[in-house]
């Protein structure tokens, strides 16, 4: 049934999330992350939101993860295989994780959410478009600016040479 499907995706998502963090190789970790992201996309499909799922796959799995992978490739091999967090911190982290999981889980589980089901049909994704253009349009503009900002910013940071700085450096060298 769908339940099995759900369970399968859930297990895939969570296990690959853990794997993404815990696998010795960063590259495999990156691939595991793609699994998680894909799993989320699977959930989106389960939730009758194919549009978001598509977007998720396109943006996340398609571009972000690839971007990450490229970055990983950029760094040195030793760094990729390094795993040296100390055990104390690790256990503390696991403790924190479990407490968060259990406490938030308990909160959620004991709340009214636990009994919500729905039989109504999913929303039409044309509504999403309407939302974008009528209600959220300033947010959309703002997001465009976010993207513009992040792209220029990231470019500036990642760029290897800055002309002015190089000039200054040259001047200093001649001193």
């Amino acid at each position, binding site marked *: 049934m769908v339940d099995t499907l759900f369970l399968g995706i859930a297990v895939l998502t969570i296990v690959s999330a853990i794997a993404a963090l815990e696998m010795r190789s960063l590259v495999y970790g990156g691939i595991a992350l793609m699994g998680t992201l894909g799993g989320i996309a699977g959930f989106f499909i389960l939730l009758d939101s194919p549009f978001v799922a598509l977007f998720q796959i396109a943006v996340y799995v398609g571009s972000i993860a690839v971007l990450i992978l490229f970055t990983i490739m950029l760094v040195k091999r030793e760094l990729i295989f390094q795993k040296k967090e100390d055990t104390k911190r690790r256990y503390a982290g696991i403790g924190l994780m479990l407490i968060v999981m259990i406490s*938030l889980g308990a*909160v*959620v589980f*004991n*709340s*009214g*959410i636990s009994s919500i089901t729905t039989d109504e049909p999913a929303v039409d994704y044309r509504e999403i478009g309407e939302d974008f253009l*009528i*209600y*959220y*349009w*300033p*947010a959309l*503009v*703002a*997001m465009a*600016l*976010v993207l*513009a*900002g*992040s792209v*220029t*910013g*990231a470019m*500036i*940071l990642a760029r290897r040479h*800055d*002309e*002015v*700085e190089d000039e*200054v450096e040259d001047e200093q060298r001649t001193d």
Partner: protein
Amino acid sequence: MIELTSTPIIILAILGGVGVALPVINIALKERGSMISYGIATLIALFAAIGYVLYQLALDHVAPAAIFSQDVLVDDAFGSLFAIAMLIVAIFTTVGSFNYMKNKANPSIYFSLILLSAIGMVLVAYATDLVMLFVAWELMSIPTYVLVGFLKKDPISNEAAIKYFLFGALASAIIIYGISLAYGITGSTNIGEVIQGFMVLDANMIPIGLLAVGMFIAGFGFKMGLVPFHMWLPDTYEGAPPTIATLLAAGTKKAGFAAALRVVVMGSVALSLDWTLALGIIAVMTMTVGNIAAVMQKNLARMLAYSSIGHAGYILIGLSIAPFSGIGLQGSLFHILNHAVMKGAAFIAVAGLVTALAVTHVEKLKGLARRMPITSLGLVISLLALAGVPPLSGFWSKLMLFGAAIDAGTVVWWGPWLAIAGVLNSALSLAYYGWIIRKMYFEGEKEKRIKEPKSIIAIMIFSIIFMVTIGVYPEPIIQFTEFATPAINAGLMP
């Protein structure tokens, strides 16, 4: 649908236009444009924006502190107050950068990012929809990640940026999570509707609401520098270029409060929680940790960073007792405005020091009063104002905050304790402010006057005038904050 002539839209248009245009022009000019011209363009845009805000206020086109609207943005006095504060900070940053950015790469991108971030800050204050709020929040944050790490050759700058980025990303994620919960139980992202939804929530849904509010506190608290979400803050402020530290300390921090006010306070009131004590505890923790850690700091920027943590605590007093005392929120708003100028001036003075002398170490400040008298004076006045010494502007807002806390004592027993913690902390803060003043004015005799950057002087003079004038005659600002303060209980309904 929001009017196209409303303040936030116009600001979005002006600043966004210029912000996007600058890099484009830069590319068009093959990266040969002069830093000054970019700066002036930025400045013009910012002045135009602030001018428009004031124009709208003067013409009474602005709703008085309407905290909700049916739209994603609302053109109200509350937002205008924040917008003025943020834009002043942005102007400070821009002007301060004229000297700081000399001989540094990519000025166009730098100024453009400042503009984008300024839009973000302003929109956060105007936003009345969680989505808008979140997008504006990111618009404010993401450029600052870049700006903090803008000095690519400087490992410190990079480290600061990485810490900032990690926290920022986590905080954003937590905010989305919180929004998702709030959305989930109320079925809307419009803050007004969310709050209304909160009010009619089933009892068994309330924990989720609380969870959402808790996540908002954590997520926004990161920007505000609330303890225990403050850890990134001193590192980042210290490592960032001081002009950008200005932007962070005086600007983005305030946006956190704007968001918290719209979402956390209102949400909490709607949920009729006993949340005030929690905020009160955080307030006391925040101011105490901030002030104590600031003692004995060797780096001026770091000291100011801790001090701004402390100030977050003061401002939070007003939020935490908002339902009990009319002037609590008003005091917070007043203090936000003041703090923008005071802390802005202080950080710009640091920028001046870095530009002119390349020092931030406190020991190196010996005899600064002789070397850079105007900068020193500005720094001293802003420090004293931060400490709440009358007759400077900081005094009045602290007065209102502590007064409100005492006033709240008639309703809640812990109200006066907030005030006591507050005054003791501001007294403690004098210890380290005084130390700086001592270094600058009482020590070092050999120094000779050096040329102070003109842009820094301009800012110093402006802030001194502001702080003293408001200190002597605070009435206009008090009136304005009163106008901008939402009535917390009555104003819940959209």
